[in-house]
Every structure is written in C-alpha cells, then in structure tokens.
C-alpha cells in the first residue's frame, strides 16, 4: 500500500533557509543542506527547496545547494521558485534534483508544463499553486482563486479548473498551497485539499497551515491528500518528523517505516 508522504519545505534565500508568516517577515534559520540532511535522517519522504531569491547571482547559489544536497540525501527532492524557462528546469534537474516545481511562471506560460513533461517525464514536473478563498463568481465557480507572485496578485482563474488544466498539460503532481492557511499553524485547508484530490488523477500535496500532528492526520483522512508539506512546526523544534509519523501510524494512517542505516 502506498504510504502518505511528509515533505519538509525549506524556503531558501541567498543560500540560507528562511521562514516567513503569510509570505512576509522572513527570518534566517539555517543552512539548507544541513537541514535537508537532518530531515532525511529523521524520516522525511521527500524535501522541497523553495527559492525565494530575486537576482540571477543568487540563483547560482541555489544550484550549488541542489548539487551539494545530492551527496548527502538519498530520497527525492524538488526545487521550486523562480523557474521560468526550459533551461531553468534543466539546470536544476542536472544538478541532481528529482523534480522541479513551477508556480507563477506556469500561470503566465502554461506551455512550460508541457515542455518539461515531454523532455523529462511528468514525474519530474510538479505544478504548485497559491490559492485564496474568494466569493464564488462566474469566472471562479469553486470560490478558490489562483494568485501569483508570492500571493500578491490575483489572476481571476479558478483553482480547480487550473489544476485540471495542469494535469492535462502533463504535471505529474500538484502542490496546493492555501494562502489563507499559510503560516497560521492552525491546520491545512481541508475543503480545498479534498476538492482538489477529488478533481484530478495525480497526487495532491497539501501545503500551508500544518502546525500539529493532528493537522496531518486531518489532511490525510478528511482532506484526502497524498502528501503534506510541513515547515514551521518542525523548523523551530516543536515536533520532529519521527513524532509526526509515530502519531499517524498509531491512528492507522499508512506511513513509511524508517530504519536506521
């Protein structure tokens, strides 16, 4: 039976992990390679690096992080943030990442999903989306709207429709990040996650709001997520991945057994 995946997300700026609240007020919290290694050893199924840098110099620092990580951890890891061109995707994959994730760039240029899937396979291309709850309208019947540029710009696109389109274009997995829940640690947006999981045939990864083990239980059961992203709840020592997995296992959620090497 396929197990539920716990995926730590490391927001990286200029080669350091940072963490913000509601996409703002970032503070530096550590070295990305060392943190990835720690989470790997603690039983994470996968790691996400999210590059929040702006300049191209800093992007080269990110490639270096990806390539150093390849020597330290032996689980899949992905890179997202600021990947705009086919060449951007290629560089990250050649540096050793298993997957690339596209977000704003795919909303502005959906062809990047198809190009990436054709060249590297759908399993390499993750469509990540930032979603905010709004009043349902004709254009946004689900009441969930796509935002870009770190949650700053509303796009007038229905999130459920965009998810289906992304799957058709060849995205192999979807990350659904709730802007409303992000950074609150009050729990994942269960209704949004479940509606996504019921609308597409590819795995759905819930993101935003995880603050306690019961939030992961809820998103894997009621939310029907295949995987969930965690950040603050583990970065600041409130919980370990091993504790979260133990909690889930005790309650009958299938999780990967981890053995020491």
């Amino acid at each position, binding site marked *: *039976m*396929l*197990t539920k*995946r716990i995926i730590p997300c490391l927001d990286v700026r200029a080669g350091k992990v940072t963490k913000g609240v509601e996409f703002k007020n970032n503070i530096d919290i550590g070295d990305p390679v060392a943190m990835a290694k720690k989470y*790997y050893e603690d039983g994470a*199924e996968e790691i996400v690096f999210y590059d929040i840098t702006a300049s191209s110099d800093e992007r080269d620092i990110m490639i270096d992080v990806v390539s150093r990580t*390849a*020597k330290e951890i*032996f*689980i*899949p890891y992905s890179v997202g943030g600021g990947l705009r061109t086919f060449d951007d995707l290629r560089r990250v*994959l*050649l*540096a*050793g990442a*298993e997957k690339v994730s596209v977000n704003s760039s795919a909303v502005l240029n959906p062809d990047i999903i198809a190009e990436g899937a054709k060249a*590297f*396979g*759908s*399993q*390499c291309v993750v469509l990540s989306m930032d979603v905010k709850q709004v009043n349902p309208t004709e254009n946004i019947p689900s009441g969930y709207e796509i935002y870009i540029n770190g949650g700053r710009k509303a796009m007038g696109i229905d999130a459920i429709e965009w998810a289906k389109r992304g799957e058709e274009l060849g995205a*192999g*997995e979807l990350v659904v990040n709730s802007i409303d829940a992000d950074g609150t640690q009050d729990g994942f947006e269960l209704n949004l996650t479940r509606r996504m999981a019921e609308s597409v*045939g*590819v*795995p759905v990864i819930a993101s935003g709001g995880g603050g306690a083990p019961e939030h992961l239980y809820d998103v894997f059961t009621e939310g029907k997520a*295949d*995987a969930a992203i965690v950040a603050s709840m583990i970065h600041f020592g409130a919980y370990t991945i091993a504790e979260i997995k133990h909690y889930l296992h005790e309650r009958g959620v299938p999780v*990967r*057994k*981890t*053995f*020491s*090497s």
Partner: protein
Amino acid sequence: MIAIIDYEGGNLTSVLRAVQHLGFEGEITRDPDAIDRAERLIFPGVGAAGASMDVLNRTNLTDLVKEQVVIQKKPFLAICIGIQILFDHSEEDDADCLGLLSGQVKRFPSSELKIPQIGWNQVYQVRPHPVFQGVPDGSDFYFVNSYYSIPDDSSVVIGETDYGIRFTSAVAKDNLIATQFHLEKSGPVGLRMLKNFCEWSI
C-alpha cells in the same frame, strides 16, 4: 569500477552519488571500452520504454549490453525503466525490448488508484537473495511507475508489491538483478541494497 550506463535515462547523477557515497568508484558512460573495463554495470533510468530502446539501438549499446550480461556474465543491476526493458516486449510505445528475460510489461489496470504510482510502497521478499541481506522484509521503497513486469518464469521473481494488484517489483537471474523501485532514492534500505549489489560475488 562500476559503469552507470548512459542512455539518456533521466537522473543518472543520483545513482552515481549514491554509489560514491557507499565508497565505490563509479562512472556515467556510454563508451564501449569503459563499459568493457567495468567490473559491474548499473542500468538506471526514468522514461518511456520506446524512447529508451531507441537510444540503446541508436548508440549501438543494445548488443554491447547483451554481450556484457550473457557472455561476460558481469553483475548487472537494472533500475526502474531498466527492469522493464529487460523483458521481450512492453505495452508502452508497443516497444520490442532486450529480451534478456522472457515476459511482458503491461500498464496498471484502471482503478481508482492514481497512475503513475508515485511514492513509497512495501516490497515483500518472496525469495531469498544476497541483495536483500540486512533489508527487513516489507521495507518501503520509492516507486514512480505506470507499467509493471510480468515474467514468464515466476522463479525469477524475488520481490512483490501491492498497488491495486500484486505485481513483480524485483527479479533476479544468474548475474542479473532488477528493481522497479529506485534504490538510489529509497533512503537507508535502498542504499543497503545498492551496497549489497556493489559487493555481490556471484
């Protein structure tokens, strides 16, 4: 030296890094001399059966690989798409494959389960093999696959996994080992199996 055969099969770097991490010397190559010099071979890959066979045929690796496996009998490890193209034929792209093992490759039947299977699933050891030494039965490994192998000879099956159906996830015959799951992405148990292969004397 362990040759990691380069047939444009996706993330070869991660296989090389895993081999190096375990303290072995590896090289990503398609050079016939380098492959001939290697003590053992890894045939990794991510991708589609048809495209992979096209590359092997175009680069004249098809006959070389068969020679290394059948005549020279070198220890040979195939991973992911590597296991699938060892068989006679794959439903994916209707591709004729290497035929080093007799059997077919089919797509997972339609069900409510997602295709491809992406994630960690259990491998049940249905036959003992040195490659499983120190690996607990039922350990979770990382899979990404839409297709699975159906060997004609069930005695080659060493590992099985459930995904809607019970399917063959690892096979072994003489000097050949193949896994549907990614040893290089499966954490400590994957590294242990890779180490067992690197140290395997037939």
